[in-house]
């Protein structure tokens, strides 16, 4: 099936596997969600209203950083974290992958029936 084939072709691109591994954790997904909605935030800000410790959040942020998903800058005594939007957009593109697979398949159906 071409849908799966093209998925594999895209999956074969290097560099994204660590990115998705880094997202495979609900705490990290939550962090990404908060950074998405709230823009750049300090660790203190990210800890507020969360039942996860500051240390745990710091650890997860470093995983995201290693995956190229987030980065931080120093503001006085605090480190402010933000998402790497370009990589996030890359990830969103994959959501459209399944949709694109159907476009491909339906294009071939058209070639067959309109012949």
């Amino acid at each position, binding site marked *: *099936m071409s849908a799966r084939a093209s998925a594999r072709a895209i999956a074969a691109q290097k560099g994204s596997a660590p990115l998705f591994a880094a997202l495979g954790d609900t705490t990290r997904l939550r962090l990404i969600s908060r950074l998405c909605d709230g823009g750049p935030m300090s660790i203190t800000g990210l800890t507020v209203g969360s039942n996860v410790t500051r240390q745990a959040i710091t650890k997860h942020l470093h995983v995201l950083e290693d995956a190229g998903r987030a980065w931080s800058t120093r503001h006085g005594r605090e480190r402010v974290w933000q998402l790497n939007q370009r990589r996030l957009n890359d990830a969103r593109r994959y959501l459209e992958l399944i949709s694109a697979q159907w476009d491909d398949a339906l*294009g*071939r159906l058209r070639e067959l029936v309109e012949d």
Partner: protein
Amino acid sequence: MSTDRIEKKTLLRAPRTRVWRALADSTEFGSWFGVRFDGPFVPGASMRGVIVSTTVNAEIADAQKPYEGVPFEITVEQMEPERLFSFRWHPFAVEGGVDYSVEPTTLVVFALEDAGEGVMLTVTESGFDRIPLGRRAKAFTANEQGWGMVVKLIEEYLVRAR
């Protein structure tokens, strides 16, 4: 956006009988989809097939070559002549040694209606939200094929987190 379903509409400039045959005849279906089934489509039937190269487009056929022979299964649900064809399958069921039969399926529906000089074909695939979280999580690390699911999970999470 929904994380559970995909909908596609396409206008085909062909007689409705022709479009129906391309969907309901398992050999014709296979020729554009890129799969060879072991028999005709019958409502309720579990169909086994293997991935083959499409005969419709040479360029795409080349791209499909490496995947020839990969097993492929669907269960036909409804067949209402010239109106509706639906089946279930396991999305991303490509990991070796995994029994997908116990897991939820997605439902694929092809619906036909007259539209001007042709046929409006609407394809929906739904049920992605029912795919086990464990399966999706596993896809993060083990199965790059699951990337689409990973991104769905993120979207789903972001929607719920609002």
